[in-house]
């Protein structure tokens, strides 16, 4: 028995307004981005672009353009960062999940530490140290910075993924005659693979999007997509910035959908434990 009293109808007005504001906050900038990506001519005081087209897209996607080179650099750095993170997080995650380590909580927390300090302050000092080591402006230097940043996801999620693999499954393999390495690569790793995969995707996306560290350590020799975007928008080249942003958006959204499939509840429940 629903009855439409005026009072009840009135309560919908603030809710509707709140939802409207929320939608504007989320979709407003995205709409602006979308418009800029296809605008040929757009200047004050006009509310909408004066002319639409794809000529800037041609410039961005030209084979020898800065954008393509930056994209290649970005993807290379991201892949190397994933490899570096995995090299640390697979053994570390397994140890954290299986061995009775003293100071387990402290070790887990230590990986969170790089996130705890103001990043600009940290990266200025990192850049200074890298400069003396000759790592400034090299891919290796940027990969190192991204790896330290990515390790927290990588180690925490990987440890959770290994923790979610029932120990008796490993024991069964050992019992059947498999050595420790064989049972790890034959049983444990395949079963933890979805979680390890998800952590790699996180690291990949973080590296792809990372700006501050790349800026302090990499500029001017290394140009990644976020740096290109920054330079473009600083130079008033909003079309290039918008198109670059859209390019960055594609893997983010795509992988987020994949991660949702990979990260099962039993793994998520063990993150940080």
């Amino acid at each position, binding site marked *: 028995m629903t009855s439409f009293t005026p009072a009840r109808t009135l309560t919908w007005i603030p809710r509707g307004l709140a939802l409207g504001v929320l939608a504007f906050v989320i979709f407003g900038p995205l709409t602006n981005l979308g418009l800029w990506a296809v605008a040929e001519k757009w200047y004050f005081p006009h509310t909408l672009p004066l002319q639409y087209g794809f000529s800037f897209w041609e410039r961005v996607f030209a084979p020898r353009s800065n954008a393509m080179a930056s994209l290649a650099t970005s993807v290379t750095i991201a892949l190397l960062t994933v490899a570096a993170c995995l090299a640390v997080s697979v053994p570390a995650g397994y140890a954290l999940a299986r061995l009775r380590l003293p100071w387990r909580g402290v070790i887990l927390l230590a990986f969170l530490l790089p996130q705890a300090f103001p990043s600009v302050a940290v990266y200025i000092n990192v850049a200074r140290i890298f400069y003396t080591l000759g790592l400034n402006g090299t891919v290796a230097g940027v990969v190192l910075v991204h790896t330290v940043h990515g390790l927290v996801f990588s180690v925490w999620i990987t440890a959770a993924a290994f923790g979610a693999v*029932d120990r*008796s*499954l490993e*024991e*069964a*393999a*050992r*019992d*059947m*005659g*498999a*050595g*420790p390495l*064989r049972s790890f690569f*034959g*049983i444990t790793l*395949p*079963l933890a693979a979805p979680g390890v995969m998800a952590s790699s995707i996180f690291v990949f996306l973080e590296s792809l999007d990372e700006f501050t560290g790349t800026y302090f350590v990499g500029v001017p020799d290394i140009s990644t997509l976020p740096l290109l975007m920054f330079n473009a928008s600083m130079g008033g080249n909003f079309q290039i910035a918008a198109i670059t942003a859209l390019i960055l958006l594609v893997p983010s959204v795509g992988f987020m959908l994949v991660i949702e499939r990979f990260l099962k509840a039993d793994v998520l429940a063990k993150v940080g434990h």
Partner: protein
Amino acid sequence: MAELHVENLTVAYGGSRVLNGVSLHVRPGEFVALLGSSGCGKTTLLRAVSGFVPVDGGRIAIAGRDVTRAPPERRDTAMVFQSYALWPHMTTAQNIGYGLKLRRWPRQRIAERVAEMLRLLKLDGLADRNVTQLSGGQRQRVALGRALAINPDILLLDEPLSNLDARIRLELRHEIRALQQRLGITAVHVTHDREEAMVMADRIVILNAGSIAQIGTPEEIYRRPASAFVASFLGADNVVPLQATRTERTLEIAAGPDHGAVSLPLGNAGAQVELIGSGPVAAHFRTESVRLATAGQAPADALVLRGHITQTAYPGGRWRYGVAVGGTVFLVDDDERRMVGDAVAIVIPPSALHCFPLRREAAGTA
């Protein structure tokens, strides 16, 4: 088929002793059940034999070879886990064939052996099924097949039936036993289920607090429990304190507040008495091995306890009564329908009595 020697085995976890010098010899082809309540060390003993628990002292030998310090993969044992421990990323056939693959069998022979195991365990047609799609009973069969496929020296069963439905459990019990006898494989089975151990095993090892309380055939431990603990654990948990004197052929029981004096025969058909001379004893008897008589009609050749009925239940077959004698309530089965409040006598034939010298703790342990 191989024998297992466990000598004076000691295992401790973080300072506390879980096994206290356990010695056990399992003969080739024998089925031995380790029986005990949780925390008694039975699973630890099994895991020490399979190599998952480091040993502090003593020796383990399988088929004459000392494996005390060998890692699990260097012991020719195969374990069936309580949780099945099947690998969810493999099919039924891959699970069963894994041990053979590790042994570098050619693919053709593995396929034949897996097919043989599937037939043996009535899993035909499930070879390519993912193990996560199988029922509990089927999963445990696959786990058994995986263990048997490698034809191990010793088959270890770690409460393999405790996660299954009652009906499937009974079915698998007999299947495992029949298979073990047919293949002549040496098996060690851990369980907390008394009936399961009695039905399946050639010999039963009763563990209590990390030590062996008794080893014997099912009949031996049932009819002649070695201690008050074993008697209680095997169902003789009605305990009445008596004053008794043991003579050469008889047990003389002095009259008490609820029973008269009686002289009972000893020996195989008579009472079991672990007493020398005279003194207080704890007399254990089973709910199902005694009967009730209407007050005043009790026979003279049995121990008779006078009391009245406080509770009735019908578990099927016979009636079960709670009978208060003095301050204690005993559970007794009887054929006749009786009422709460009826004055009755519990008739305990000599063969149903297991008497142990009464010390401070003897009556309480169960």
